[in-house]
């Protein structure tokens, strides 16, 4: 899918409106009126068999009657009639459809059938389809307004893709009032054919778009999304507001779309991996958008604050620390200049306090000196309305000075109401983000930095070890499949991780107490016995494990004991035998896990292991395949990392071996996507250079090949 193919939607040469109407208030009328008033320069062809003209345009009975080629058709007729109209569009050679009509998948089974029919027609004729059940599209550069939105926003550089059409139009309405510029707005609707990934790709290639905003509830093809988004992010920022992130929200979203909303954790991990910036509210989404569409990406970390009031300056400083922003330390040269030019009571450190009586000229002086400082990467100017304040003049001079320092982002916080309103609007219109409270300003700045840091990251390729044995893994999986199981037995799971170079204790399987005792002698005492059953997850809870057995007699009686206990607690479990292995020494207990996310694939987890894992939740996540820095970050993000490094004179653990184990797990689950759940809990880490051992491995396969 390249840009050329979506051109019929963003830049059609001619448009047909199927269902155009003369009756004001009808969808077919609003759409026709909007496109006429948008200043669209191509031909507009209303289609309606019951009338001869709509808004002064000649109307045809069917699209087949139109005397010229049509690039794009908008369909706004009842769902039941859409297939026929779409088929005619196909015959006519229309390149793309925007289906506004509702009554498809969102209403249930009958609608889903209609939608499938529509998809087939699109495929047959090579027509791309936006919607159905969408609110259309706007492109201010073309210009074209094929939506329900009352008026088109000003031309700008923001591309906005929304899964909720209504949220989209509400935002556009607000944008009009705020005089915010947009490049384009796309309502996704049911995503029968074109989805967010297609539009991200198209907007990514459009040089007139400098930031892409997304409102999404679900992503169906997570991996494709990641792939495309990662490429686009290198060129321009993507800011996303994800709906359905709370458990109640997920229920609402699931009910709304009928699709799995997916775990928020997986989304968050995926967005971080691809450098997408997450917003937590609609306001934050647009605050970031304003900054990204007009401000440069900061080149260095130092944030400077110029304020005329101490309080807001202190608040902004507190916030920067919390948001991971670094307050710049001004050079002594800058400080000296400030001291010379500002009143004695002014503060010349950062934040620079120009005092409450500062007029525009004092602001200009301070701002210019600060921006000139090499330690300063970005600037926040805070203004509170006081008796002497000249908000409008200050705004004008800010704009003028910033024109000379275009490479450093400038964010304004003009606090107050009517007194600063004119200045605020002026700045926003001129492309300087201006907020009423420091929180918003600092949040926006942190989004700019987040993106800047992402761009600076070196490209890291996933690590691939060569000393692996995929054939062995395949063999084990086949055996399990042949036994019609999805849950692997302990020894099977252990042999799979061993095939990928992860150490597990050597083990044998016994069916009788005598056999167990014989194995124990070969492996060397002390040994551990562990029940083998696909039905038992928490083996300790049902007495399925016996530790530290030192004699053959111990082993035999433990064998009987385990069987007795397991049959008592879980009488219906299938027992495959008892596993015997040499008891290994204690070390730090960690966990490496994986759950195959429905949207994004294998999500690898690392954290503090043992029985506290569910309680302390000291864990971190990354999507496989993993690069070396990712594996390292996973460890560093946990509190347990300090333990591993050694606290209070303790010797450090073998972090290097642990990191490699994480990477090997990442490689294994990437190579074998049929492994849908996996846990190494615990993985025992020994001292530096002594490695780590996967003590207990659990694994579940997908059900795809079962039945």
């Amino acid at each position, binding site marked *: 899918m390249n840009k050329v193919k979506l051109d019929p939607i963003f830049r059609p040469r001619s448009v047909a409106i199927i269902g155009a109407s003369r009756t004001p208030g009808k969808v077919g009328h609003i759409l026709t009126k909007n496109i006429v008033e948008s200043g669209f320069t191509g031909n507009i062809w209303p289609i309606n068999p019951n009338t001869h003209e709509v808004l002064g345009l000649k109307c045809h009975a069917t699209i087949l009657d139109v005397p010229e080629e049509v690039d794009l058709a908008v369909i706004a007729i009842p769902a039941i009639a859409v297939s026929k109209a779409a088929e005619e569009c196909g015959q006519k050679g229309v390149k793309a459809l925007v289906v506004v009509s509702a009554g498809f*998948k*969102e*209403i*249930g*089974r009958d*609608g*889903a059938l209609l939608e499938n029919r529509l998809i087939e027609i699109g495929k047959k004729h090579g027509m791309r389809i936006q919607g159905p059940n969408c609110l259309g599209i706007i492109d201010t550069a073309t210009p074209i307004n094929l939506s329900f939105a009352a008026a088109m926003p000003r031309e700008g550089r923001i591309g906005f893709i929304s899964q909720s059409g209504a949220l989209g139009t509400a935002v556009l309405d607000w944008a009009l009032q705020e005089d915010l510029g947009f490049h384009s707005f796309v309502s996704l609707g049911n995503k029968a054919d074109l989805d967010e990934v297609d539009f991200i790709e198209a907007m990514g290639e459009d040089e007139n778009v400098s930031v892409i905003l997304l409102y999404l509830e679900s992503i169906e093809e997570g991996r494709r999304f990641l792939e495309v988004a990662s490429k686009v992010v290198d060129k321009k920022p993507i800011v996303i507001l994800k709906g359905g992130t709370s*458990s109640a929200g*997920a*229920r*609402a979203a*699931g*009910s*709304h*779309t*009928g*699709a*799995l*909303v997916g*775990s928020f*954790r997986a989304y968050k991990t995926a967005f971080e991996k691809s450098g997408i910036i997450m917003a937590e509210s609609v306001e934050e989404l647009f605050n970031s958008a304003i900054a990204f569409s007009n401000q440069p990406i900061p080149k260095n970390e130092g944030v400077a604050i110029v304020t005329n009031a101490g309080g807001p300056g202190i608040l902004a400083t507190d916030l920067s620390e919390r948001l991971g922003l670094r307050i710049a330390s001004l050079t002594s040269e800058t400080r000296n200049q400030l001291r010379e030019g500002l009143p004695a009571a002014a503060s010349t450190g950062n934040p620079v306090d120009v005092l409450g009586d500062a007029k525009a000229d004092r602001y200009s002086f301070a701002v210019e000196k600060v921006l000139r400082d090499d330690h300063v990467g970005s600037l926040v100017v805070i203004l509170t309305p006081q008796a002497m304040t000249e908000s409008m003049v200050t705004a004008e001079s800010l704009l003028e000075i910033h024109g000379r320092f275009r490479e450093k982002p400038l964010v304004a916080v003009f606090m107050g109401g009517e007194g600063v309103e004119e200045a605020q609007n002026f700045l926003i219109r001129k492309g300087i983000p201006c907020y009423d409270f420091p929180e918003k300003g600092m949040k926006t700045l942190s989004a700019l930095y987040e993106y800047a840091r992402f761009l600076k990251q070196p490209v890291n390729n996933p690590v691939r070890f060569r000393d692996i044995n995929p054939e062995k893994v395949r063999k084990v999986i086949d055996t399990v499949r042949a036994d*019609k*199981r*999805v*849950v692997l037995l302990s020894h099977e799971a252990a042999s799979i991780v061993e095939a990928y170079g992860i150490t597990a204790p050597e083990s044998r399987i016994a*069916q009788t107490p005598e056999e167990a005792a014989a194995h124990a002698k070969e492996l060397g005492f002390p040994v551990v016995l562990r029940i083998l059953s696909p039905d038992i*997850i928490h083996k300790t809870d049902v007495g399925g494990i016996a530790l530290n057995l030192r004699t053959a007699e111990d082993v035999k009686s433990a064998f009987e004991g385990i069987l007795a206990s397991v049959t008592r607690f879980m009488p219906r479990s*299938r*027992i*495959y*035998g008892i596993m015997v292995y040499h008891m290994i020494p204690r070390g730090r207990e960690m966990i490496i896990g994986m*759950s195959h996310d*429905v949207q994004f694939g294998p999500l690898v987890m690392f954290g503090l292991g043992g029985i506290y894992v569910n309680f302390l939740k000291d864990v971190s996540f990354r999507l496989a395949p993993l690069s070396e820095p990712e594996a390292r970050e996973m460890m560093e993000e946990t509190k347990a990392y300090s333990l591993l490094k050694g606290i209070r004179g303790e010797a450090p653990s073998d972090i290097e071996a642990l990191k490699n184990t994480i990477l090997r797990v990442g490689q294994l689950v990437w190579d074998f996507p049929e492994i*849908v*759940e996996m846990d190494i809990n615990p993985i025992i880490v020994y001292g530096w250079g002594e490695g780590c051992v996967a003590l207990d491995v659990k694994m*579940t396969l*997908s*059900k795809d090949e*079962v039945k």
Partner: protein
Amino acid sequence: MVYAIYVSGSGFSGKTALSLGLIGKFREIGLNVGYFKPVGQGRKMVDGKIRDQDTILLKEVMGLRESLDDLCPVVLGIRYLDQINDKCDELRTTILDAYEKVKEEKDILIVESSTRPESLTCCGLDVPSLAKELDAKIIFSVKGGHDDIAESAILYRDYAHWKGAEMLGTVLNFVPYQQLERMKGVVTPILEGCGLDVLGVIPDHRELTQPFVHDLVDVLGAEVLSGRDSLDNPVEGFLVGAMSPESAMSWLRRSVGGALITGGDRTDLIVTALETKPSAIILTGNIYPSVQVLSSAEEKKIPILLVPSDTYSTVTRLDLLEGRIVSSLSSPKKIKLTRQIINDHVDWGKILEGNEEWKQKKASK
């Protein structure tokens, strides 16, 4: 003369499946095989009479022409001892009369005992007494995998002898996969050392004991909202969903053929479950899911069942399915499987030889 084989055994030891399999197998080799259940048990009223469910089912799937009254002349209710009250002779006559009708023209008659062999001992109509009276030979089925139950077959054999009946042998049924070798290598020799023939060691066929989704529909009185074509999904186990979708995911993935029980408002769980191929999703409390969820389930062909009861009552009702293999035997797949089991794991030739006439016939061949 008809050869009557009395299939008896401990409770839920697979008697009906064994009977079905034997009928199927003997028919396959060209014999005229009948079925008779002198004493049945009933919970359900059909046309104003308590009927034995197994008999209704067997009549249907085996195409038996005899009336239900003849196939199963005595049906006991739950408090049947109240009703008997000096009627023992009457019951005996009823049974013998029916027997005369049912055995007509048959080569072999499979006689199935009631759930427990001791039923109607007070009337002298227990299994050994009846077997003696009907001149039937007993096959005693026990649940394999439990040493004490296997041993109870010996006790029962001795009891049958004492009552003057003859036991052909025992069948070790439902033997767990991992116990098979032990049952064959250790337990069988011990039983045979005590003079009890082991006629078969049958591995546990989960497919046979699993209910189907339509059994859930029956027992719960559920409304089917989607996936009507998948009601013959076998159901293996239930998961009550009250946890977060992420925790549920791991459980759902582990269970093959599991059914999820949750509330209709737990859309997050329902859509998660739809990704993991459950056999069915049971929504409690009569809360309809949204149409989008239903159309998604429809697309994936997963049955969604709606029940009015709360989760606890639903689970309690599902307990009724325990061991009720028979309710699901109607599937042609299962019927074929019962015959296959007899073929593969039961010495049916030896069962035939238990009758002198057949033994001679075989010898002369």
